[in-house]
Every structure is written in C-alpha cells, then in structure tokens.
C-alpha cells in the first residue's frame, strides 16, 4: 500500500472520469475498487456505467471530438483493433517505459493469461490491460444428462450413450432428443438455446464468434490480407461451408424455446436459468451471476461447462494454432489519447488489475486474467460451484482466440446483423442472405478505403 500512496503523491486531488459497462465486473470496480483507490491514493474516481452500445458511442464521441472527457474507458477486445488503428488509445508500453515511478513493481505483465496478446499492436505494444475475460462455453444440465431414464431412452433411439456433445452432429441429436423428451414428459424443456433476436447485433455475434469458428470459418469469413468477404475475392462469407453453417443455425432454432427470437445475450442465459434448456452455448460472464446463484436460477448446482462442439477440422486447426473454436471474450480499460490525466489513469488501471486483488475480484465477478489466479488453490471451491468452469478454462483456453483484427468491426457488424437477421426472420434464405452480405461487405470495404 505504501507504494501506491507514494506513487500517487503528485496526483492527489485529481478527479478521474472513467466509463465502463453496466455489467458485473465494471460495477464491482465502481462500487469496491474505485472507493478503495480513492482512500489509498487521494485520487477521486468518477465512474460511469452504461449499457454496451451507449458506452461505445460515448467513448467514440469523446475521441472523435477530441473533447478529453474520459480518462479511462472500457474497451472490449473485439473493438480494440479499430481504436488502435485510429490512434485513439495511449500506448501503455511506452507509458510504462517513460514512467517507471508510477509503474507498479509488482505488475508482472507475464502473469497475465494469453488474453493480453489480443490487446497488443503489431509491435507488441500493449494498449489495454485486460480486467475481465470469459470464454463462450458449452453448458449442459448435469441432472438431465445423468438421468437414468433419459439415458436409456437415448440409447434405445440412437444406439449410443447420452453425453455432452463433442461434434455438431451429436449436439443436434441431443437437441432433438431433449426437445422431444420435454414434450413426452409434458415439461417445458428444449434442447437448444440461442440469442436470435432479429434486428439486434447479438445474433450476428453468435454466428461470427461462436458458430462459424467451431465449423471452420475464421475471422468472420473475411480474408485479412485482401479485406474481402466474397469467395470470388478470397473471402469465405458466401462459401458453401458458411451457408451450410447459417442454414444449420436457423434450422436448429426449432429446438429452442419458442421465444428464442426475443433473446439477446442475457435472455439466452436466462432461458438456462429458468430450467427450460438442456444444453447451449453461453457467455460465461453470465455463468456465475445467473446460472450458479440459487437466488437467480432454478438450476443452480445442476450445470456443468465444457468446450463447445466443433467439427473435427476446426478442432485440429485450433490445436495447431491455425484457427480457433470460439471467442475469447473480455475487455480492458484503456486510456484515450485525449485524456488529460494519463498518469493518474495508469495508476487506476494497475490498481484494478493488480495481483493482490485478482483472486477476490474473481470471486466477486467470475473473471480471470492472471495465471496466478488460475493456479491458486482457493479457486477450486469456486470451480466446483460453477460447474467446473475454471478447470475447463485452464484446459481449453488455448483453443480460444480473441476477435479477428478487423478495424472496421463496429461498422460492419451492423451489416452482418442486417443480413443474418433476414435469414433468421425468414425474409431471405441463408444462402441468399450470405450472398447479399458478402457483396455488401466488399462494397463497404471499398468505401472505407480498404
């Protein structure tokens, strides 16, 4: 603590303005970490939380207008490439080198999980320190998968044992089985869930982050050298593989609860928490707060987590480092270039990612960014309570990757959303939608100068 007090001496009385998301990890920072920081350093923290879109818009408005309002901002991993390219963020590696007096000697950059790689530019300089990280894993109901009656019926029908799916064919069989099982038993049970609300970006993210990679289509189907999406120009968006994947996704919705098309990120996990769903892909930032908390979930203690189903090729690619099977989700706090209090902000960022507190933070918000936390003995209890999440995290972390380095991400996600929504809503076939999407992406790339 003395180090912090001393280092912050020149900045006492400064007020930092920070903007974060209205999700648990940021709220924990606002309610717990920031007041503590104030007490120790005398630097005040004005911490604002907003929903996902609003947070981005405010940050972008600040940096494009050069208004210098925010000193630290929540930057989600998939957006950092856009912001790095626009030079909106402070180079933290440089900041550290120039200011050893305010760099925590205990920072231990190497202790961070591989997630920090995704916040570096091509020179290896760090532009954001991760404070939250999650994997979108495959979650399933242990009580249902272990139910002897269900196991018997499954074996009778499919000739093999009931188990959590490894491949997409198995996933589909499980989905079909449990949906019919629900009907037979007269309970509200479905074999699948998704975030299929049309007109809202979540459905597009599900396709490009979770479904496509696990079926062998990486980087949103865009060729990263030529910046094109159509097959003719080297992309994969309207390839047969991609079309088959989207068609599969749209068809699978029949095994999901009937209101699946109203689901965004959180309703998807709520459907699991309500006990209506036997298996599904869920963002694990919802795991602890929602699904493992008996006050908020009907299935607390009855879920387990493992890696998502994949095609064999995708898994092989991921193991060889050529591909990935899912999105390594998370965010950092970064310093906008126009901030007037960069040094004080740097102190704050180190404060929220410091080693001494990381375990407690994991306990509060179920996010892991340091290897030391993952290795610590205390994490075992949390692991059990959360269906083996941390074990799975350690085991499969290497197969996940941060988002594709697409600097125009925020612009084109809307285009993906428009077309994928059309396919999901039935306004176009998946094939038509992807043809249209690929064409429009190519056009947008040209317009943006790529």
């Amino acid at each position, binding site marked *: 603590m003395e180090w912090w007090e001393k280092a912050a001496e020149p900045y006492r009385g400064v007020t930092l303005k920070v903007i974060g998301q*209205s999700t648990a990890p940021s709220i924990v920072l606002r309610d717990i970490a920031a007041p503590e920081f104030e007490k120790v350093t005398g630097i005040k923290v004005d911490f604002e939380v907003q*929903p996902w879109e609003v947070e981005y818009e405010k940050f972008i*408005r600040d940096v494009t207008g050069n208004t210098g309002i925010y000193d630290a901002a929540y930057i989600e991993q998939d957006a950092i490439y856009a912001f790095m390219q626009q030079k909106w963020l402070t180079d933290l590696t440089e900041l550290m080198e120039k200011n050893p007096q305010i760099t925590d000697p205990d920072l231990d950059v190497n202790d961070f999980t591989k997630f920090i790689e995704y916040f570096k530019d091509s020179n290896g300089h760090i532009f954001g320190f991760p404070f939250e990280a999650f994997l979108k894993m495959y979650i399933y109901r242990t009580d249902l998968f272990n139910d002897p009656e269900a196991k018997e019926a499954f074996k009778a029908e499919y000739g093999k044992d009931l188990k959590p799916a490894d491949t997409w064919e198995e996933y589909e069989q499980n989905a079909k089985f449990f949906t019919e099982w629900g009907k037979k038993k007269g309970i509200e049970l479905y074999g699948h869930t998704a975030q299929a609300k049309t007109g809202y970006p979540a459905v597009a993210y599900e396709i490009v982050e979770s479904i496509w990679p696990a079926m062998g289509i990486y980087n949103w189907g865009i060729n990263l050298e030529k910046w094109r999406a159509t097959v003719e120009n080297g992309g994969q968006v309207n390839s047969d593989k991609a079309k088959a994947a989207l068609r599969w996704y749209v068809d699978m919705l029949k095994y999901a609860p009937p209101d699946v098309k109203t689901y965004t990120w*959180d*309703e998807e996990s*709520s459907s699991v928490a309500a006990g209506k769903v036997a298996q599904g892909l869920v963002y694990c930032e919802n795991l602890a707060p929602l699904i493992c908390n008996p006050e908020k979930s009907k299935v607390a203690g009855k879920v387990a987590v493992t890696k998502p189903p994949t095609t064999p090729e995708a898994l092989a690619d991921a193991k060889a480092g050529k591909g990935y099977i899912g999105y390594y989700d998370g965010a950092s706090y970064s310093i906008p270039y126009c901030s007037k209090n960069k040094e004080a902000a740097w102190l704050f960022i180190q404060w929220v990612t410091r080693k001494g507190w990381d375990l407690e933070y994991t306990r509060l918000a179920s996010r892991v960014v340091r290897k030391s936390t993952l290795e610590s003995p205390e994490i075992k209890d949390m692991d059990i309570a959360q269906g083996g999440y941390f074990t799975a995290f350690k085991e499969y972390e290497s197969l996940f990757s941060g988002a594709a380095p697409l600097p125009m991400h925020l612009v084109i996600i809307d285009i993906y959303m428009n077309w994928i929504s059309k396919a999901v809503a039935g306004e176009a076939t998946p094939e038509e939608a992807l043809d249209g999407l690929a064409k429009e992406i190519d056009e947008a790339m040209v317009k943006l100068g790529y």
Partner: protein
Amino acid sequence: MITKTVKQFFIYLVLVAITIAIIFPIYWTFLVSTKLKIELLDRPVPYPTRFASENYSRPFVKDIYGQYLMNSILVALGNVGLVLLLAIPATYGLSRFKIKGKENLFFWLITNRMAPPAAFIIPLYLIFSGKVLSFIHLIDTHLVLILTYCLFNLPFAIWLLRGTIDSLPVELDEAAYVDGCSNLGILWKIIIPLAKPTIVVTAILTWLFSWNEMLLASILTSTRASTITPAIIKFVTMAGTDWGEMAAVSIVCLIPAFVFLGFTQRYIIAGLTFGAMKE
C-alpha cells in the same frame, strides 16, 4: 329511443373497458417490480405474492437512482421555468407587434420542434464540450439539459400560447395603454392573467417532455446530472436484464408525473382551447 339508464350503462361499460386497457400494463409493471428475479424467469403469478423490496431499495438506496430522480425533477422544473420566462414575452411580441417576417420566423421556430432529435446529438455535444466556443464546459450539468430542451419546448410553447394570446382582444391592450400602462405592464397585468389556462397547459406539457426525454439526456450527461430516463436502459445488460428493478424504477418514475398531471388535468382541458371559439 334510448333511455337514459341504457345510455348510462353503455357509458360505464365503455369506461370500464378503457380503464382496464389503460391500467393493466401499468399494473403488470408494478407486479413485476414486486417479484424476485427467480420468479420472473417463467410466467409470474398474476398477483403479488410478496413484495421484493430490494427491487426498490437497490436502485434507490444502494445505488444513486435517487439522485437521478432528483436530477429529473430539477431539470424538468428548471426547463419549465426557463421556457415560460422566454416564451411568454416572445409570444406577446409575436402577437402584438408588427414584426417583419413574423410568419416565417414562427415557421422556422416550429421546424426546430419537427427535426429528428438524433440529428442534434453530435453538434450539441460539440457545442457543450467546448469545441465550438472554448469556454463552454457544460457536459454533465443540469444546465445543459435545461438549455437543450428549450430547443424543442420553446417553439412548442410559443405555438401553444400564440393561439390564446392572439385571441385576446387588442382593445384590452389599448385600454390599458390609455391608462398609462407600459408594454411590460400590459403583458404582466392583462395578458398573463387572461392566458393563465394555456400557460398552465404549456407548463405541464413542457414539464412532461423534459421529464420523459431520454436520448439527449443520455448523450449530454453522465454521472452527476443524469436524469432517470437514461438510467432505465442501464438495466438492460449483456449479463441479465433486471426486470424487477427496471420495473421498480419505471413505476417510481411514473409517480411524480402522474401526480402532477392528475391534479392539473382540469387545467389542461380548460387551457387547450386554442382560442378558436368565439361567439
């Protein structure tokens, strides 16, 4: 020949139907605010079985929604004050004085009210964060909203007031003038008292608009001066929409507005005559 009782019965029937249609969604919101999160995962029981007071206490006691509510009240009242202060004289000027290009001016005023609010986001942000005139730093203050809402409320107020003030006979002005009243005196002693119903209506509708506005409030304020409407969307997160708390905040947000409107609805009726009826 329809008898009086049949007519009464029919009236009451329709009224009951209307009341149910109006109250039901609001009742449901209140119901949701009494439920625990786990009850809301499925179809909740349609009557309150317990009162989940944490849905109210967490936002208002633990979090700073109480402050947001206060901000809403301050901004709304401030804006009403400012609008009335500016619009009444302005309408008086427009109505009673020969001003060249009056109709065009009036029309230009109204176009501000017609414009899509989204168009103003960036320019207003630039103005108030000091990029246009560098001494202006009004982001996240109450004043910024009180001023910004004038953009929409002033034209609307002038428009509402104009009909009434136009219909007040000029002879009253002249009589007062002959008695030695200045222009300001005429405004204060003659016009305002006679236009009171419309002024009250204008105040009410201005207050309502300021109270309910969300987009600009979310853009121009953050932690200190945020009103309660942008705070409602904060509940929609990637990690679970807290319907119970959201409903609780919606209900609390509704109460001041309703109390205000409920007591003044008779003034609305009296004041919205637009001065078009003359014998």
